[in-house]
């Protein structure tokens, strides 16, 4: 991938290519948020191998967003005990017949289909997911000039909405609200809306289609609040400045070199008071 990639919206960019594209991504900013520049540098130089959960997530994405690709790329492994000669033989034959396919366990493959069907059965999820899937975007951040990149799960042109598909163990509102904070989805929403604005695309809303990976494969639809998007912008700004400093000076510091005082989280003493007070009183 050329280092002089022009800002714009790109289609049919394989995921592996997207991850090698220049520019800072929202997931990289999250590494700066949670860990340190040194961790980000390491991850940039040593892209992590996808975990089984990530592989399943990618398969579910394809099943829902790119059904044609799903049928071509993802295949179920022959069921049975992989240590037996018969099953090993079957699997080898399958792999030889489809050298570019990625194999999932029959259980994971069935999960993909069940999740896909659950989303397809939801009227508004169908509407939300009716648009351009898996578009990769590259833009220059107007404030810092830093090259940024993002991969929109779906651009809903008619509703002006960027849609992100999330698979989760639980799609309930309270739980997903906490996930938004824990995994920085508000930053993702803010970052992608900024990207769309920088490219002159008319998207002003960010929504989630959240689908559970376990039966009964609950589907929930959420729109990110304006307040959460503003908070995302507030979090992104200093991280972009930090990233710029790291890039410009090619200095990627780790944690503080000083001995720092550490305490319990601010809320913990109160919880302890309640716990001890409660047990004393009881």
């Amino acid at each position: 991938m050329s280092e002089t990639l022009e800002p714009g919206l790109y289609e049919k960019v394989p995921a592996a290519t997207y991850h090698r594209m220049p520019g800072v991504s929202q997931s990289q900013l999250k590494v700066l948020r949670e860990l340190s520049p040194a961790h980000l540098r390491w991850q940039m130089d040593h892209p992590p191998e996808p975990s089984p959960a990530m592989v399943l997530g990618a398969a579910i994405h394809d099943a829902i967003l790119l059904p044609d690709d799903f049928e071509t790329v993802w295949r179920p492994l022959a069921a049975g005990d992989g240590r037996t000669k018969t099953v090993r033989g079957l699997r080898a034959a399958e792999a030889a017949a489809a050298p570019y396919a990625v194999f999932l366990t029959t259980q994971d493959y069935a999960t993909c289909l069940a999740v896909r069907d659950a989303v397809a059965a939801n009227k508004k999820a169908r509407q939300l997911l009716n648009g351009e899937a898996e578009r990769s975007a590259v833009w220059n951040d107007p404030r810092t000039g830093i090259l940024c990149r993002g991969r929109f799960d779906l651009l809903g042109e008619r509703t002006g909405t960027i849609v992100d598909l999330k698979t989760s163990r639980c799609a309930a509102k309270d739980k997903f609200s906490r996930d938004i904070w824990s995994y920085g989805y508000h930053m993702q929403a803010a970052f992608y809306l900024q990207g769309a604005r920088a490219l002159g695309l008319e998207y002003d809303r960010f929504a989630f289609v959240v689908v559970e990976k376990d039966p009964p494969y609950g589907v929930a639809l959420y729109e990110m609040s304006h307040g959460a998007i503003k908070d995302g912008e507030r979090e992104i700004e200093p991280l972009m400045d930090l990233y710029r400093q790291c890039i410009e000076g090619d200095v990627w510091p780790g944690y503080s070199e000083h001995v720092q005082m550490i305490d319990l989280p601010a809320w913990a003493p109160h919880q302890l008071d309640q716990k001890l007070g409660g047990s004393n009183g009881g």
Partner: protein
Amino acid sequence: MGDELALPSPAAMAGFGEAQLVEGGIEAIVQREDTEYKSAVVVAKRFPRDEAAAYTAIIKACKRPGMAEKARYAFPRGNKTVTGPSVALAREMARAWGNVRYGLRVVSLDDEQVHIRGYAVDLETNTYVEFEDRFARLVQRKDGNRTIWVSPDERDLRELVNRRGAICVRNALLQVLPSDVTEDAEREAAETVRKAAQGELKQDRAAAIRRLALAFDAIGVNTAMLERRLAHGLDLVTVEETTELRAILTSITEGNSRRQDHFEFDAPRDSGVSEVDARLEAEAPVEPAKPKKQAKPETAGLL
């Protein structure tokens, strides 16, 4: 001393905080001020302040939770919170330090503008400091959902002048009073508030939080707005946060800052109604895609 200033006041030589009718014209007022001032200087020379005793009295005053709570203001500037000694602390210090005369004068007052001057004099050293302020003769009023600026009636005008004047007087007083004493007083007051908050929360947490919520509710800041600022539920408030909230309360009530400087309330964070949902309602539904071929795994049933 009362808390009101007589208006209109042509010469406006009234002492700060004194409600006073203007009788006998400007000359009489000037003459009386002059006489009072000279008498005060004579008394000050005869009874000079005992600085050690005055210092002790100030610090002692700052140990009183009621005084300490009002002693500091806080308001946001950029990403930081600025704190400083309040009007109440400046007045209390002037009282305890002694031989300090201070007040507010209305320099001019017309239909459009008010021009005021706060002053403070150390009668022993003859140090005189004044601070001026000019502002439009307008007050904010609610008109439905909008905020509009209107010409104030006499009562509103008096409140406006007193509020702006109090800040001028405070600034003048703080220039006359020794800065190290002010810093010590502030520090002592902050510690008192912290200890009081700690004690209050420890003694009866629920009641302390309720009192805090009520105090803010009285100035139009509800619990949701407090929690938005704290970034957590009010029930998890810490001693430090309580201390800061008290300073914010003082700042708003004294007119150093406005509610919207500290709290979000004009733009609701989330209306609870999804705009995306409304847009989806407005468009035609999307029919489910017909399966092109059997979706079941190719190897299913092999074993």
